[in-house]
């Protein structure tokens, strides 16, 4: 009997501790949204907290009141029963007034937030141009930053640095403290650009251009995600993000400039063929043909598509998935 109990407790301990081990072993901060490392994601997190506080101030007392009513007026409690009480103008005013007031506060908060993190020019970035950031500018002009063109294919990310004539597939490398301006488009279907710890989501649509801006406050490795379902290879379509101090970033740029992979309009068409990036392959390109972004937009507008083969991923043990097509 005692042995059996002991066995049970051992199993119970195993069950309880396994998840904890996973939490400890794999990521020190699993709640990415609670640990923003840039002013845009930081502002978004700030609005999340403010919103939750306002709502809790209303909803927690209501929940408490509900629980109290459920207990107090259960039939067995023999509380006063008043079946005639069905209307009270004063209460009606209160029950319309409380939600109205809450919505008023939240609406103002929301209005502020929309402009603070507007993808086409977030106010928080303007505010974030603090002295230590200005000191680290890549460009001499304060306020200017690094331009990155984001092009999605089925199912890869291509980050083109038009001013540096380099590109990187499935890995975004950015200098810290520098405003990064993204222009985004897709060669195929709609995707959604998202780096939880740095910047919120923006759609990446074929034949269209969207924009996004961010600053990475701290050097480090982050996770970039495609948030919008885009077909069979979608689940493997995430990208690595590395924020590097200026010197390291420049070293990375030099390495990329020496890559023997070139990217022209023609080689882009090969790159954009349906590819499931199972292995998480990262490729760097040098000598990127100028105007690639505009070319991709124009092609999509002209009806260019990169069709998905029929029943493409019915069997992923096939050889075509085991090698990486450019």
């Amino acid at each position, binding site marked *: 009997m005692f042995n059996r109990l002991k066995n049970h407790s051992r199993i119970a301990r195993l069950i309880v501790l396994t998840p904890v081990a996973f939490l400890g072993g794999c990521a020190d901060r699993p709640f990415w949204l609670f640990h923003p490392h840039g002013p845009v994601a930081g502002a978004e997190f700030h*609005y999340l907290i403010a919103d939750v506080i306002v709502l809790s101030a209303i909803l927690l007392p209501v929940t408490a009141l509900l629980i109290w009513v459920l207990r107090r007026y259960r039939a067995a409690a023999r509380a006063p029963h008043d079946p005639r009480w069905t209307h009270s103008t004063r209460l009606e005013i209160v029950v319309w007034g409380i939600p109205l007031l809450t919505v008023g506060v939240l609406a103002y908060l*929301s209005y502020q937030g929309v402009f603070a993190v507007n993808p086409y020019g977030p106010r928080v970035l303007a505010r974030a141009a603090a002295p230590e950031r200005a000191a680290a500018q890549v460009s001499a002009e304060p306020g200017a930053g690094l331009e990155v063109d984001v092009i999605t294919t*089925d199912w890869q990310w291509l980050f083109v640095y038009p001013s540096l004539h380099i590109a990187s597939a499935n890995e975004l490398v950015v200098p810290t403290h520098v405003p990064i301006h993204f222009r985004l488009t897709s060669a*195929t279907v709609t995707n959604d650009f998202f780096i939880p710890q740095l910047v919120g989501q923006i759609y990446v649509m074929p034949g269209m251009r969207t924009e996004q801006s961010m600053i990475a406050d701290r050097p480090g490795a982050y996770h970039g995600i495609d948030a919008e379902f885009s077909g069979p290879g979608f689940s493997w379509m995430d990208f690595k993000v590395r924020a590097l101090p200026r010197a390291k970033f420049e070293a990375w740029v030099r390495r990329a400039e020496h890559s023997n992979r070139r990217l022209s309009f023609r080689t882009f068409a090969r790159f954009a063929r349906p590819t499931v990036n199972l292995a998480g392959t990262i490729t760097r390109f040098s000598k990127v043909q100028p105007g690639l972004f505009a070319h991709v937009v124009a092609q999509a507008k002209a009806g260019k598509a990169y069709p998905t083969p*029929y029943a493409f991923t019915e069997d992923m043990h096939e050889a075509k998935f085991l090698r990486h097509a450019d």
Partner: protein
Amino acid sequence: MLVHLPPPWNPIFGRLGLILHYRYNNPMIFFAFELVFVGAAILLFWLTCTRRWHTLWRDWLTTVDHKKIGVMYIVIGLVMLFRGFFDALMIRTQQAMAVGPTAVSFLGAAHGYLPPFHLDQVFTAHGTIMILLAVTPILVGLMNLIVPLQIGARDMAYPYLNAVGLWLTATAAALVMIALFIGDFSHAGWVGLTPLTELAYSPGPGVDYWIWAVQIGGLGTTLGAVNLLATIIKMRAPGMTWPRLPIFTWTSVATNIIALTSFPVLTAAVGMLALDRYVGTHFFTAGLGGDLMMYTNLFWTWGHPEVYFLVLPAFGMISEIIPTFSEKPLFGYTTMVLASMAIAGVSWSVWLHHFFTMGASPGVNTYFSIATMLVGIPTGVKVFNWLFTMYRGKLHFETPMLWAVGAIFLLISGGMTGMMLAVPAINYIVHNSVFVVAHFHNMILVIVYATFGAVTFWFPKVFGFKLDGRYGRRFFWSFTAGSLLVFVPMYLLGLMGMTRRLDYIAHPAWYPLLLIQVVGIGIYILSVIYFLGMLAVSINRRETRRVGADAWGSARSLEWATRSPVPFYNFAVTPVVHARDEWAWRRERGLTDLRPERYVDIHLPRNTVVPLVIGAFSLVFGFAMVWRIWWMAACGLVGVIAAVIIRSFARDTDYVVPAEEVRRLEEAAARAPRPDTATAAAGATLPPHAQPSVRS
């Protein structure tokens, strides 16, 4: 052929040659096949052995009785709910198995056991089924059942149209089930993301299955909305003025205005998508002048009102259940009606919040953000009104009440997260994440809870006996435990940054919570077993569970003022309504005797086979269009049109039940032994909640 399609295609079999390319050796498909076909075979065998074919044909398949149509809607909904649950089971287990690059890999999957080809179909089917073919039919069914009874009508305004709507819904469900075995289903999500649904990115028949299921099912729902509105406007019993309308009927008015005005938008949007795929137009393609975001706008112009189409009847149900089990009228009736109408009104101006991240200008996002929050006001009012209904009430926690109270708690948490998502700055970091998925499941659970409550609440009215309370409570608690274990971790995962529709989980930190979700879904399985147990036990012991007109002893509205089960003519004589809560009014005055002073002839619609024929031909049409078998599609369409024309010449569409026959039926029913007939009469003084429930 106007569009370029990959071969094969031939004039006789269309694209059916494609099925040779599928790998049918997947054990999952085999298992589904077994479940569906062995289940169907057992059902057919049972029908034959017990000689029920004739009854089935006469009483169900050809009926135009709104109660039976309502029951069939609910049965279709429950069957599809079960199918959708299986899909959920697969999504949850796949995600828990596909964590990290070293995850197990079999059945052709790179990680886990479902490759994207299958998983994408599974989550698309899960969404399409749960919204359009499970929750919608169950709600439409309940409205069908209860609304005519609540307003004292003999049947719906258009009984034949009602049956057409049912069989079109059944056709849509059948198409989705056929897609499981013949070909594939759409992979592009239940919203049909463009341009993913265009031919270039979805060359198979899957999206076509989705298109025709949505089109045919949507048509059924639109017809149902016309019918319910006409019924409520024109068929109310004498004295049933608008201010006396039961609250569930009021929410039905609001919800069907939504359905009638929003479903055509869906039909148009999906119709244009169909033109893209069949005729080669460029409405929603990425290039050549197409506008893919226009589809997203149109879809959600329907999609968001659809959400309120679902939630408003649920609010109505909660508003019926709570007063009954609080022994108190609804607090703030007028406010409740206004709130319902306000929700219906605002529902058209919020659709863009489904894609704040599209990159619209700050002004646009601010407008839709504030419009969305406005919905919170009438919803908040409803919560307060339910609270004040229970305040100074006498609460009896029978199963329907448990579901209703559970729904309020869910509404509070879902409302909280909804108000978070309404703020674009927050939406940018949780859009398309499982936080959103958890939020809308939370809201749909409000509907599911209200619906289970309503089914338990009105079951005795329709069938004449109560569902077993012990199993009902087990069902409730296991379902609640399952919901918490699935959706609380899902909220947390959303805050961790996990996005939706993943076939592969790259981050092992998400694993423990995914595992907890699997435990939750396991408890859901338990709740399904309790649900089936509840049905089995209740049906087995139905003779000891019979109830009188007022099954709960404290019911309030007009539907309780007729026998249980409701006779096919609903009321022996058309009732005259005196008050808002008519049955409560009569009970307080001791007027609970159902025998009228004199009987009159009753005029009723006659059964017809035409709706079933229309359904069958539309199934032929839908299937043929999916596989592009043009001759067969033409036959199906001609069949539908011919059936409609032939029916329009039918003269013998109704009959009269003579007064003497009504008297005979009523008196026979009154003589039948009922364990608690007495309680119904004495309900005013001694509600049956106070007594131990009947258990054998």
